[in-house]
């Protein structure tokens, strides 16, 4: 099979893709952590209005219960989305590394190490 390569440009593209995927995964993790923190905060707040507490307030207690349930649903969705994004990020990084190794092994041009697009923050 006779294949012409465009290795430097393609490697730079793969690095950018890996960077975007990693950023997506990080963003989802941050959001997931924020929701988890909020759930904890709501639970503490809910405990204040519990039936056995001095400040008991059944209405507020139930409102918070519903809010927590909604947040838990959101957290579960984020967990699943993060899992997929994280796998995608790992795949993109592995592919970039495999292609970079292939280029190095075969003496193909690779992006300049001085190019901001050469590593995309992925390797560092």
């Amino acid at each position: 099979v006779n294949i012409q390569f465009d290795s430097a440009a393609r490697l730079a593209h793969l690095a950018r893709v890996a960077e975007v995927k990693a950023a997506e995964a990080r963003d989802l993790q941050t959001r997931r952590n924020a929701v988890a923190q909020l759930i904890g905060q709501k639970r503490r707040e809910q405990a204040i209005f519990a039936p056995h507490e001095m400040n008991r307030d059944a209405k507020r207690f139930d409102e918070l219960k519903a809010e927590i349930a909604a947040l838990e649903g959101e957290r579960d969705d984020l967990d699943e989305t993060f899992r997929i994004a994280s796998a995608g990020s790992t795949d993109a990084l592995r592919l970039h590394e495999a292609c970079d190794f292939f280029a190095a092994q075969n003496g193909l041009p690779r992006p300049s190490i001085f190019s901001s697009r050469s590593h995309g923050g992925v390797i560092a």
Partner: protein
Amino acid sequence: MIGAALKRLTGTGGVDAFGRIEALRSEIVVAKAEIADLAALPVPRAEAEAALDAALARLGQQGADALTSGLSSLTRPERRPEFAPELGTSDLLALVVALNAQTVRATVGKALDVVYRGRKALPPMAARKAKTAELEAKIIAAEIEEERLIRAVEAAGIPILRRADADPRAVLARIVQ
């Protein structure tokens, strides 16, 4: 916006780019499995027996050479007659073969019977090599087509993931859209 981009990517015959990519990925998986199956097959019985015969001939010769290596100790007048062939541990099997090749062949043949019992005709090694090369060519062609479609999807601004085990030759190839 993504809907419009997807429409642009819709190919002929109602097969969209994503469907085509999935089909290509299936083709690649099937072809790779076929190569793995071929590699796992034992060599044809005839080729195994030919290899055994070649080994027995070589060992038989080695054994005969080893057995007669100390002949001068029997025949030279300046030495006291003593039969002392120079045998190393690697000569022991060769010696057994030299003295009784037929029994060795029958014993190994029985073991081969067990390995090949119930197997259908196995393709010759040369045919397997040709088939593997054909499958590898099919895989790289499919990988290049998959990469072409992925680039088209990316160019349309639609997020898509490459396989982590995609062939670097396809991913780094210069592809004309």
